[in-house]
């Protein structure tokens, strides 16, 4: 059976999800064999390779935007979910508090430390093994059935130390009130965490660029006043976002379908500029036309590129 030609409205229905006042329409994909009589939607890697393309819009160290063109939402969503929940990263799992006389309670400080994003040499992070989690019961002792835990070794645990004491600064001006000038170490930042290589780790995380360190050195962990001390040892392990959000490598990852703007009739003259300003820059393009052309219907200036109609 020869495939029937696809009508423009049918093509539109297949391509565009309707977000209406009270309903959402055309949400499910219909590009499956047998769904449209006479059409072949069988999976073909060659066809996919031909139709699929990637466009990069932005690639900053902490922010990237790109288009995956010709990919079904089910696959794009899988990539998004994998980014959030299934890519392993390093995070602090255990904090041993030797001394903490700051106003931040031990457990609150430990929770904050856990959320600090850590980085290090990629090869080193890949070399690091997973460590089975230790679940403590109420008494703080490891539970009997957690014997599967292989214990902390240099292949599965990264040790960091945080040792800092606040003191009075020397040579303070009379009447000084700025804590930054009055005290030394009044703020504890993520940069104060020191990587303590164990065993072979100094080879996997070489100085100076490869060491395990916080992604952002300026995260404020606690505030101190003279005489207060924080002395901690931290064990960081590899984990995935599905277990705890602190292991997620992304702040968030989202995908969206692009919106469409349909211009029902040509917009001419002053109106065109006003119309373009109603949108983000670059969404609506303007095109110079002659008076003669403006009288024509279906002139080249009416050709839109899907999302943008020019004038």
């Amino acid at each position: 059976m020869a495939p029937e030609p696809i009508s423009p409205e049918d093509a539109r229905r297949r391509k565009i999800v309707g977000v209406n006042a009270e309903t959402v329409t055309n949400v499910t994909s219909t590009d499956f064999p047998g769904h449209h009589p006479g059409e072949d939607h069988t999976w073909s890697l060659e066809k996919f390779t031909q139709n699929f393309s990637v466009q990069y819009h932005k690639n900053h160290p902490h922010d990237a935007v790109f288009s995956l063109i010709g990919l079904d939402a089910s696959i794009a969503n899988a990539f998004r979910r994998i980014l959030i929940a299934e890519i392993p990263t390093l995070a602090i799992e255990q904090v041993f508090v030797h001394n903490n006389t700051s106003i931040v309670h031990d457990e609150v400080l430990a929770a904050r430390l856990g959320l600090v994003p850590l980085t290090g040499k990629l090869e080193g992070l890949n070399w690091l093994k997973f460590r089975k989690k230790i679940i403590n019961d109420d008494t703080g002792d490891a539970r009997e059935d957690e014997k599967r835990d292989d214990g902390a070794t240099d292949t599965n645990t990264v040790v960091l130390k945080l040792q800092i004491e606040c003191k009075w600064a020397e040579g303070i001006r009379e009447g000084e009130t700025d804590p930054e000038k009055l005290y030394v170490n009044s703020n504890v930042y993520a940069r104060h965490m020191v990587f303590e290589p164990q065993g072979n780790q100094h080879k996997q995380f070489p100085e100076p660029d490869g060491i395990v360190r916080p992604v952002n050195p300026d995260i404020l962990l606690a505030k101190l006043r003279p005489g207060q001390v924080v002395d901690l040892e931290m064990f960081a392990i590899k984990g995935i976002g599905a277990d705890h959000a602190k292991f997620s490598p992304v702040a968030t990852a989202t995908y969206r379908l692009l919106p469409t703007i349909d211009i029902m009739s040509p917009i001419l003259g002053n109106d065109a500029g006003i119309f373009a300003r109603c949108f983000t820059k670059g969404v609506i393009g303007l095109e110079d036309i002659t008076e003669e052309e403006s009288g024509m219907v279906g002139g080249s200036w009416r050709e839109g590129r899907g999302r943008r109609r020019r004038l």
Partner: protein
Amino acid sequence: MPTAIADEDYPMHNAPEAEANTGISGEDGFIDLNDQRIRVLPGASETAASFEFESEDHTLGNALRYMIMKNPEVELCGYSIPHPSEAKMNIRIQTYEGTTVYDALEKGFDDLMGLCDVVTEKFTATRDEFNSKQKA
């Protein structure tokens, strides 16, 4: 096959003991790759079966369902997560005569891997090109 399925059903009061939790459901964030993680649910035939995946969710479920539905020999494919607090995902496959659900499932995995390879390749190429353009 309603009769075959009925044979596998038990009234609740004499249902067999639930299997002891083997601890492989990944609830501690751990998946052992050597564990058997796919199970065929009772009532399966060559052309119609449900598979239970341990520690899988919508990430694999929906993507795999899409790929299996792209196979013209498959009559129906769907997935569900029967209970939110159990890390289990079920996939139902029904095929036309002349093939088996096992082939369909395997083809689904292969196609999905092929797709991911193409995406990785094109993505890496485009990203590197974009980065070098930005630097220039």
